[in-house]
């Protein structure tokens, strides 16, 4: 209370001198000076406040401006000297000079040299982009060897950059791996040296795989599961076809309300982004490399993993279907290989009947027979899963032509064809004939010419066998 009273008194006291200014005395003058001081202080404070506000708004506006600039200004900028040469190159390459690649390539080479002069980062988008341009021009001028030289240099440079710690920041790595894989695929298309190609494929695929592993606990689980499985096999538990499962079902391939196949938003497949397309293409190329080296086992195990990973990565459904069908083909090839082995062994036994009784031969024959049956059965499962899925799904069954992704239809055609081949192989000729005819009509619809050719060949084989069989059959009467 006392304090309050004092405050009140002060307040009143302060007002007094303002009102009765003329009654000046030393005392009031004193008081006035105090008040003036206080006012001055107050004004100074207000001034400070104003400046503060100014500073705040200037900082705010500049931050906003920076943000807008950052988001909208193109970051793809070349140094002025390089840009000048590039414009000339683009001009020469365009319709303005009727696509004069010969002139353009010189400009692009000059631009590259200018980049070296200004010490541009050799793994930057700009630098590598110009290199790609040069390679593109080489290709247009039919200088494929020279173009491949550039692709290889790029490939090795990316690999070294990605493999030296600290050179590429974590958030840039996925994009760089995507570029690396693109260059890899391109160089494999031109490359003639199989061994170098395979080595590069393995090294760069491993790099991409490590990147995925670093972001995907699911992939680690996959590896642990596989380790467990390998241990089981090591302990002597044989791999039966019942262990094998296909991935084409409604659980793995999501359908939208209209019944069309879509991607599952809820499945977290971000670890595979953004390079999953390139990654799986490269893996398929590796499978093809293994096949051309006649290593069906390696091709098979690679493809089996690929299909499972494609599901994990939530690839477009058409790709998964096609991959599953391709796996069926590889399994069939493996089955046929076992059959060839059986044939070889039996031939040897035919030459030397005593062999037939040895334990080793009996055991290995039994083993081979079982493996062949398993492979063919698994192959049938692969093809069948695709065909059955297409039958269950009304949109695929009735609107088969109306698919955005051609690989859906191709996968179904390939699976139908594969079923036909399996039946032909087992001698079920009527069924084989029907399936092959189905696949031919499907292949016609998608312009799947390669399949069309093969299917017609197989159909011919079937009809030859059929007439042979009919001729052999004892005629009634």
């Amino acid at each position, binding site marked *: 209370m006392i304090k309050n009273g004092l405050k009140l008194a002060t307040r009143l006291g302060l007002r007094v001198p303002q009102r009765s200014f003329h009654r000046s005395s030393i005392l009031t003058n004193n008081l006035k000076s105090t008040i003036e001081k206080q006012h001055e202080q107050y004004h100074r404070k207000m001034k400070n406040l104003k400046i503060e506000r100014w500073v705040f708004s200037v900082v705010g506006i500049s931050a906003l401006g920076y943000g807008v600039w950052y988001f909208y200004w193109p970051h793809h900028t070349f140094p002025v000297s390089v840009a000048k040469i590039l414009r000339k190159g683009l001009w020469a390459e365009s319709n303005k000079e009727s696509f004069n690649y010969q002139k353009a390539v010189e400009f692009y080479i000059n631009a590259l040299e200018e980049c070296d002069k200004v010490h541009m980062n050799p793994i930057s988008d700009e630098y590598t982009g110009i290199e790609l341009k040069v390679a593109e021009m080489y290709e247009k*001028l039919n200088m494929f060897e020279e173009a491949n030289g550039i692709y290889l240099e790029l490939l090795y440079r990316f690999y070294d950059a990605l493999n030296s710690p600290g050179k590429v920041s974590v958030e840039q790595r996925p994009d760089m791996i995507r570029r690396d894989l693109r260059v890899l695929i391109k160089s494999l298309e031109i490359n003639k040296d199989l061994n170098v190609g395979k080595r590069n494929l393995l090294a760069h695929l491993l790099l991409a795989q490590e990147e995925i592993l*670093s972001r995907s606990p699911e992939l680690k689980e996959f590896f642990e599961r596989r380790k467990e499985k390998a241990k089981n096999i090591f302990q002597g538990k044989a791999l039966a076809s019942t262990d094998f499962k296909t991935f084409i079902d409604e659980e793995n391939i999501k359908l939208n309300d209209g019944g069309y196949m879509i991607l599952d938003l809820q499945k977290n497949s971000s670890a595979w982004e953004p390079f999953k397309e390139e990654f799986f293409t490269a893996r398929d190329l590796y499978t093809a490399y293994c096949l051309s080296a006649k290593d069906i086992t390696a091709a098979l195990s690679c493809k089996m993993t690929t299909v499972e990973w494609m599901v994990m990565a939530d690839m477009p459904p058409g790709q998964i279907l096609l991959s599953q069908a391709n796996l069926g083909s590889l399994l069939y090839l493996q089955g046929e290989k076992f059959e060839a082995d059986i044939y070889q062994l039996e031939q040897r036994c035919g030459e030397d009947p005593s062999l037939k009784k040895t334990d080793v031969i009996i055991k290995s024959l039994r083993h081979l027979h079982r493996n062949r049956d398993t492979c063919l059965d698994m192959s049938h499962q692969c093809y069948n899963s695709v065909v059955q899925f297409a039958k269950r799904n009304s949109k695929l069954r009735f609107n088969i032509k109306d698919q955005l992704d051609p690989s859906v239809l191709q996968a179904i055609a390939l699976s139908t064809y594969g079923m036909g081949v399996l039946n032909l192989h087992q001698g079920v000729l009527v069924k084989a004939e029907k399936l092959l005819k189905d696949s031919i009509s499907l292949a016609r619809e998608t312009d799947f010419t390669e399949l069309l050719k*093969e299917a017609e060949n197989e159909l011919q084989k079937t009809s030859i066998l059929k007439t042979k069989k009919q001729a052999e059959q004892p005629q009634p009467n």
Partner: protein
Amino acid sequence: MALYTPPDKPSSPRSQRYEAEENKGGNNREQDDIKKFYVRPSLGLRLWGPLVPASDNKMGLWTLIGIQTAIGALCLHRVRVLRASTKFVSKDIANIPSLNIFSKTHGSMVLNPINNSLKKPSSSNSKLTQFFNSPRWSTFKSVAYLLTGTLLLSQSLLEASRLKILKYDPWYEEARSVRDKKFFNDIIQFYHEGIDPAKVKVKDAASGNVMSTNIPEVKQSVALVRAQAEAENPIIKWFGPIEYKPMSFTEYLDRMEYHFDIYDFLQNKRTLKENQQQLNTPIAHTEGELDSIVRHNREVREKTKDLVKNTPAGSIAPSEVGSPGIPLRGIVLDTDQQDVDTIDLNEIWSLYDPWMNLALDTSLSIKFLPTVMAPENQVKQNQNDSQDDHETKTE
């Protein structure tokens, strides 16, 4: 390829049309969406509740951080002002003459330098206003402001460091990938929805004739444009696909921890590999190989320059140059572009981006076609039992 032009107003952006269409019959759908909506995650923007943008919307996140920081700063500023107003200047009574005319006693009293003239005499106020005028209330106020300000600023700092310091952010990656997937799904949906010929007319870019809307290419491009319009929808741009559920905070932390573990492991492995490179059999290219290729490429460049200078135009690959049509992905500049130096390099470069061209080149679809082989043939040949055709997908 066909170019789409809207039927009546050529200048009106199609996105609006479709939005308008969807809004008409979309009330039920909207309700469903709201039911399914999950609050977007963040570290320091939780106070915003359902307004938090998708984690890949950096612009939105920064905007909210900016606003939050501004509010926080304002709070702290209020604290300063409040404190200045409640800061009583303590003075010796002896120095204030009007109170001390007849006395020689000393003692301290407090003065309020700012609010003196503003305050009404306390006698006329009720108890409640008295409370609001009391120093206790202003202390409480300033403490509250202080706490709010600090909280907001620290939260902003947290979120800002998430965006700036974290190199790997599972929420961001998830949101980005979901956005891409949604785009794919939209294209599928719009493609199969088809085009209503009454609403949309498609014209050939070259001849201007109206094209049938049942041609797959036309359906494709219209679906693509509609999906792009859907992605540009402000709500989807802000929140990402509405119906997806972001991962939980625990999973976020788990993934982050996992990433750091594996990343460290891989980095160590790479460092080791670098040190031991000479010992191991090469699994990748060797340094010598790279050097020789670099040297080779340099020579090739010089040679090419010489070659190009000394041969007449079109002599190296005569098939391409001068042929009447436009080659595949050939650069076409505007007719009114007259001067080399006026080319908008950024635009043309990104339109004909070499990396994009490479992506189109490397999009392969590989199929394996088995054929039936009699075992005796297979033993003999043991080759050509498969045909892997590398067929480039054409869009």
